């Protein structure tokens, strides 16, 4: 049988494919283990929840104290003056 190099490409293709499969599996596992997608959703939800509940971009635990209605207003029953005037 005459020697040739036609099989070299096949071997390299298999090696490349194995490397890519390994890389894909590694990346997928890292993303799952580090809970990166959960962080992508849970992280932003905290300030969104604060905005939904109390109108401020912050954690809902802190947003109650910063609700806009807590601020002193001019139009009150006591006739308060405008703060700083």
């Amino acid at each position, binding site marked *: 049988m005459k020697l040739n190099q*036609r099989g070299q*490409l096949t071997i390299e*293709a298999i090696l490349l494919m194995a490397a890519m499969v390994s890389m894909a599996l590694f990346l997928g596992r890292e993303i799952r283990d580090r809970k*990166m*997608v*959960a962080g*992508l*959703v849970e992280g932003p939800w905290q300030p969104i929840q604060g905005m939904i509940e109390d109108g401020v971009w912050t954690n809902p635990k802190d947003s109650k104290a910063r609700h806009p*209605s807590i601020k002193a207003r001019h139009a009150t029953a*006591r006739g308060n003056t405008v703060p700083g005037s």
Partner: protein
Amino acid sequence: MKSVKRSNILKSEEGIISLDFIFALTMAFGFAAIFFVMALTLATVEAGQYITFATARTFHGAHENQNMQRDLALEKFEQLTGSGIFSRIFNQSWFTLKNPQVGDFNGQYPESDPDNAIFVGAQVEYRAKVLNMRLPVVGNTTEDDNSPVGSAILNAYLMREVTSAECRDFNSQRYEKIRKLDSKYDELPTASATLVTDNGC
């Protein structure tokens, strides 16, 4: 059918990128699903806030007594969530809007000034279960099933008008205090007399 020579198959490198493509497509699908669901969630929050506002607005209107104000508000909530497009949105597994509460919620907020004690209105529990997804390759969008992601309390504070019962009670008390201002008012009838307010209650 056109036959493909064995040597041509071996020389072809077109399949090399297929795996990358599948992986990238899966990732892109996952992120697209997250953004789509987040956009859908924010849209339903807006709809839920309208329902909460409508509930608080119904609670706000004067009535015979506070219980009747509350009953009307809850009836409004049931009416909005139980029919039409809102029924289809909030009565399935993706989004839920439940447990409407109406009344005084000042205890949930730090007291800064009595004039600012205006947290009287409606609260509704909102939940977007659709944010809890299991995506291929990249995993879950929440750390566990009990995650607060997608949950929020929708608020609408419009205060509450005085009820007829409260108005009559207030006028009775005022009448009694006027009677006690001076002994010459002792001859006036007591509060058990029928109270007629000239401007209604």
